[in-house]
């Protein structure tokens, strides 16, 4: 049986991330409807012991050159796997490989591609992706004809459990020549620095976004966090502007948090942010735009201006 769907396993350090199992679970379903097998591409150094989840066949590229990461080197290995497996669909996540390799892989294969998918289906031979665009404000139904259809999926879109169910996949070692000649070389991988701030350990988080407007205004929300004795968290724009250091960031490129209550102040709710906080017990969102996507995931919302609300909160909670 031919391989219908190939999932790229996206581990750089530590455990295989949840998103790989999410893709394997969805991939199994797609492979079944396309009448083929599910493959997984496992690329790295010393990767033989990693779990392959629900895959029927594992394509392994194991080379010391891959012990650290350089996109063009991994892409060369991935292309070799795609050529060996000849799948109809290639799935990656927007978390790592999808944002780094999917577009170049698809372009170099002359293959169609959809980014930011949150759902996937087949219509006969056509792959249909539902993609989140414009910061989550609009969805696009994207039809991909031509093979392979390359899709990068937003983490958290599918349950991981179905993809974990392990079988005993066939292992195919894929030899790749010239990995050292991709014009790039991985040097090192650094895990996030441990600092005094741990936003993942608090039961309550006060989190601030672009709506705060300026670095000076942060003092307002910092006061609220201080009276509550909780760390101040923030969305990506605050970190990218250099207003707060990286360990405060919630989201795809920051920390995943799961407090009992998450108070989102001036956060619009871009997919990058939602990925990091949607599992919080209770989400309370304050944003002056009633159509902000944050209200879709929040349990409670208000369109009162945060500059009016926060001092009232600080006053009530300060005593």
């Amino acid at each position, binding site marked *: 049986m031919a391989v219908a769907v190939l999932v790229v396993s996206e581990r750089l350090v530590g455990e295989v*991330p949840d998103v790989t199992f999410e893709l394997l679970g969805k991939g199994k379903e797609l492979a079944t409807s396309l009448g083929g097998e599910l493959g997984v591409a496992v690329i790295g150094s010393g990767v033989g012991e990693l779990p392959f989840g629900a895959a029927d066949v594992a394509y392994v590229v194991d080379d010391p050159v891959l012990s650290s990461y350089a996109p063009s080197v991994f892409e060369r290995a991935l292309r070799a796997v795609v050529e060996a497996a000849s799948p109809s669909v290639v799935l990656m996540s927007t978390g790592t490989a999808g944002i780094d390799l999917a577009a170049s892989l698809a372009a170099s294969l002359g293959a169609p591609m959809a980014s930011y998918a949150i759902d996937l289906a087949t219509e006969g031979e056509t792959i249909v992706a539902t993609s989140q665009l414009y910061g989550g404000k609009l969805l696009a139904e994207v039809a991909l004809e031509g093979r392979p259809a390359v899709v990068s999926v937003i983490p958290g879109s599918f349950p991981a459990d179905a993809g974990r169910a392990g079988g005993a996949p066939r292992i195919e070692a894929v030899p790749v020549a010239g990995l050292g000649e991709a014009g790039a070389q991985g040097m090192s991988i650094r895990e996030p620095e441990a600092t005094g701030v741990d936003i993942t350990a608090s039961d309550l988080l006060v989190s601030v976004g672009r709506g705060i407007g300026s670095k000076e205004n942060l003092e307002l929300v910092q006061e609220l966090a201080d009276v509550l004795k909780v760390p101040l968290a923030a969305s990506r724009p605050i970190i990218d502007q250099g207003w707060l250091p990286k360990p405060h960031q919630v989201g795809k490129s920051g920390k995943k948090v799961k407090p009992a209550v998450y108070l989102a102040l001036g956060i619009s709710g871009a997919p990058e942010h939602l990925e990091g906080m949607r599992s919080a017990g209770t989400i309370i969102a304050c944003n002056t735009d009633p159509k902000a996507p944050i209200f879709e995931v929040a349990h409670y919302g208000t369109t009162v201006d945060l500059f*009016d609300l926060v001092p*009232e909160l600080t006053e009530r909670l300060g005593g």
Partner: protein
Amino acid sequence: MNIVVVVRQLADLVEELEVNAEGTDIDRDFVKFVANEWDEAALEEALCLKETVGGTVTVVALDEPDVDQTLWTAAAKGADRLVKLTGNDPDGWVRTRERAARVAAWLRDNQPDLVLTGVQAADDVDGQTAGVLAAMLGWPHAAVVVGVEPDGSQVTVTQELGGGTLAISTLRTPAVLGIQAARQAPRYAPISRIRQAQQSTPIEEVGVPEPEVGALATVRRLFPPPAKGGAQMLEGSAAEVAEQIVEILRSKGLVRA
């Protein structure tokens, strides 16, 4: 070091976006177009690199609504040369494959050392520009870049991959980088400087013929996400809303007051 920054216009996400009558694109008639914010980070990094190691910064864009303003702003911030590639439909949704093919055609004739662009854009449904450009040019690439250090004929980049893990690698130049964040927040250009740039820095217009692009993704339908019911809205004045939030926190045992 000669650096090219590829920038683009994008519908302002602060505004409400309507879908057009065909249901396949946003209604572009009433949308304000602004610079893609990640491209601003790419420009900032390029200007910082120029200040550190010398060289030139050329900013390249397709023909898009209000793009001249974005180009002049770049000049006011310190870009040396402004190029507008014409030939695309200025009022349409230019897909990444077409965008990259047009820019690649120009880059082949203008061999820079480094190409920087924003890591993504809010409508790049068929892939992010940096990777597609690199594939078309056969150059090394990296996305989600938060650090760039040139070193002779190579460049050392730091990428921020899932969960804040950093990957450091070296790339042979010319290379294409998708910038997530510059070493400092994008600088501000006062209106007076932008007006000055408008007088002093011409926008070179270069026509690019219609490129051949491979298998494209077809957007059959664009639509707002179905409302899931979402949040229960707390009504009233700021004081009344604050009171209700305190009550929620109290019910969860998170405050004693």
